[in-house]
């Protein structure tokens, strides 16, 4: 049993997760994998493509139950999710997309959130009329609109131009920090992880395991260039050591 006041928000243990391959065999993606998230902190899960990051997220958010192991969430956890693709309803306006996901939220709050994420002028557009960056903004707004206490983001800033990605990322970090939302951010961008996270989890080897767990003692606005460079060097050393 966890003691009272335990700041853990989420624990997941995957003894084994495998997919059936087309040739009839099995491809093992995760084995004896465990992960703990600290309440109210931003965790960046960094790892190369194809290492099972999305698979892990799907297990955490309950979309994939076909695995050996368990997921432990505090009761009444509200999970906000941003998928790798925006997954908006193309036949509903941006505002309706937000409202349908968060029917209890006040329209003013939704509008404010949309403004913060740079899509305030597009509330009455259909998703097909948005750029990828704007669509990502809507997906982020939708996840935040439900006032989640766990936020799960699957490479939400990928294939955006650098400036936009940075702006969106720092907006999200600010919102999340203010509301103390436990956050799991998947990315393969080490710099992004250093800029945003309280904890950086490095994914390596196959089946995937966590090869490094770095606590960022000067996160986000407290970060100095010097500290960022040191952290990056530390990550580089771990990755060099574990790669074969």
């Amino acid at each position, binding site marked *: 049993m966890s003691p009272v006041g335990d700041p853990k928000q989420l624990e997941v243990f995957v003894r084994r997760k495998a997919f059936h391959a087309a040739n009839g065999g099995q491809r093992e993606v995760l084995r004896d994998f465990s992960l703990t998230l600290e309440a109210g902190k931003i965790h960046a899960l960094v790892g190369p493509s194809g290492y099972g990051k999305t698979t892990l997220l799907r297990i955490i*958010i*309950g*979309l994939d139950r076909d695995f050996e192991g368990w997921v432990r969430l505090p009761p009444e956890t509200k*999970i906000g*999710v941003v*998928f790798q*693709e925006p*997954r908006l*309803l*193309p*036949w*509903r306006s941006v505002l*309706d997309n937000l409202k*349908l*996901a968060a*029917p209890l939220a006040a329209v003013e709050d939704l509008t404010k959130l949309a403004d913060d994420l740079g899509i305030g002028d597009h509330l009455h557009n*259909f998703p*097909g*009329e948005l750029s990828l960056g704007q669509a990502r903004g809507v997906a982020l707004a*939708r996840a935040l609109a*439900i006032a989640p206490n766990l936020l799960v983001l699957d490479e939400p800033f990928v294939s955006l131009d650098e400036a936009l990605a940075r702006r969106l990322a720092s907006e999200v970090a600010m919102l999340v920090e203010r509301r103390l939302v436990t956050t799991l951010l998947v990315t393969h961008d080490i710099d992004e992880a250093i800029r945003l996270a309280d904890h950086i989890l490095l994914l390596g080897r196959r089946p995937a395991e966590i090869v490094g767990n770095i606590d960022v003692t000067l996160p986000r606005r407290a970060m100095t260039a010097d500290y960022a460079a040191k952290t990056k060097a530390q990550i580089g050393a771990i990755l060099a050591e574990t790669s074969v």
Partner: protein
Amino acid sequence: MLLRLLSLLLLIALWQAASMVAASRLLPPPLAVLAVIGREAHSHALYFNLATTLARVAVAFTLAMLLGTIFGIWMGRSATFNRLGDPWLVILLNLPALVIIVLAYVWLGLTDVAAVLAVALNKFPNTVVTIREGARALDPGLEEMATVFAMPWQTRFKHVMLPQLAPYIAAATRAGLSLVWKIVLVVELMGRSNGVGFEIGSAFQLFDVALLLAYALPFVGIMLAIETFLVQPFERHVSRWRPKAA
């Protein structure tokens, strides 16, 4: 639009010319048909019969669309139910309309219920097949999204599923309407004592082509109007979110 109108005028002109060559009893000129329409309208027989037939079309069509949509969604989403239902569907699809009509009249008597059921049953399998196609093409990504955001089933149905099915429903509506209004006439001819189909049957027995056309043409006109002013705007409305082709 202008070209269509011209083409229509050409058809009427050809009709006029042909009626002058043929014996007028076999092909009366347009004005003679118009006169019969006027006469039938004056006695209110035209309105009564048109309304009766339209009511049958409406009920049979609604029934077939409603049940066809439910079964189509069901079969498209459940492999088990699809395997169970598919043989029935194949039989129904290949049963000639005439067989269904006769059986309905034999089993249920020469009643309106039998007539409407026979029409609906002819349309039903086509609806199922079309909607099933749509249900199979539903985006699993959006369904997952609806799941993680814990959307209630009403929201999922109305805002996630129905918009994806809308093009298929529109296609089934279009095809269904034209099938239903053709079969309704046959059903009326065979077992009812009113309606456009019945009147056409009487006209056939009297060899009265003018009367036949006087009922057939207004009916076709109404169905085309429904298609143009109801079905097509509905189709445009449900696809308005699609980016306009440049």
